């Protein structure tokens, strides 16, 4: 990846999921898009999709998967741990320290719309985080 030659960030890109998140039926390893092979820019050959989390959790072009005993430090946690946490669940009620995350614009739409809890998958994934303080585990 040519972009990884630059030194500002701590490459390689690392993301992590809890096992129950990784095993959830909504979590996919994608090899295609719209019925075709996954294009390079979308993360070929294999890309993770975690639809209830912010997009950066869905790592592209995966080269290695490890099972670890301890919670790994993800790429963005290392870049800025105050602003990016391990979970990165879509949550309109917990703003990023410098900006709101309560609205969004979907691709192809003009007007902003309210962002839904867990990106609209609250029913399916809410139980994974029951009892957790989502301000702390952002």
């Amino acid at each position, binding site marked *: 990846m040519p972009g990884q030659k630059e030194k*500002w*960030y701590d490459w390689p890109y690392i993301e992590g999921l809890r096992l129950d998140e990784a095993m959830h039926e909504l979590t996919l390893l994608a090899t295609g898009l719209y019925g075709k092979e996954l294009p390079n820019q979308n993360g070929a050959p294999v890309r993770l999709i975690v639809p209830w989390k912010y997009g950066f959790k869905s790592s592209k072009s995966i080269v290695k998967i490890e099972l670890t005993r301890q919670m790994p430090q993800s790429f*963005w946690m290392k*870049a*800025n741990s105050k*602003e990016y946490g391990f979970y990165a669940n879509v949550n309109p009620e917990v*703003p990023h320290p*410098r*900006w*709101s995350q*309560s*609205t969004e*614009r979907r*691709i192809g739409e*003009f*007007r*902003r719309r309210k962002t839904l809890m867990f990106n609209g998958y609250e029913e399916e994934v809410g139980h994974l985080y029951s009892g957790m303080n989502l301000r702390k585990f952002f």
Partner: protein
Amino acid sequence: MKLTRLFKYLAHAGSLFSLAWLLFDFSTQNLSVNPIQDLTLRTGKTALILLLLSLTITPLTTATGIRTLIPLRKIFGLYSAFYATLHFGIFVGLDYFFDWKLISEAIIEKPYVLVGFSGFIILAILAVTSTNGWKRRLKKRWKAVHKMVYAAGILVVFHYLWVVKSDIREPLVYGVILGVLLLMRLPVVQSYLVKVRNA
């Protein structure tokens, strides 16, 4: 003087180039998947670059003694205010579609918006009072009012610095340029430049 006129044309053409490029990309659907964000970022950056260009003219004149470039200060300044207005208009009108409740929430949660807005207000005041009529009306105060451009520069760089995700190198470069341009205005540095020039 003929040369001044040439420089003026070049300044107008250069300043409008960014808008032409933007309109070209817009009409040929070459903006990103988030076109409104693209429009916001590009108009904002053009406003910043033009503001820095405007601030370059005075030190350049001091250093070289060539006064041909002085009219460009106003041209670049006005275009900077123009792009800042587009930037602000896109934020309010396109991005938030005049939803004042959302906008006020955004301002509270995104303090960099306020910083940028303050810079925009200054640029707008300077643009309005840039005419000869206002120069006459404000008399000696005109110069003091227009010194606010330094504050605008600092606010705008800070606004940019605050909005980037983590990689602050690019806004930092603009910050350093602004710092140098402001330092070159210190009386000590100015008299040194004049001394070097005359030596």
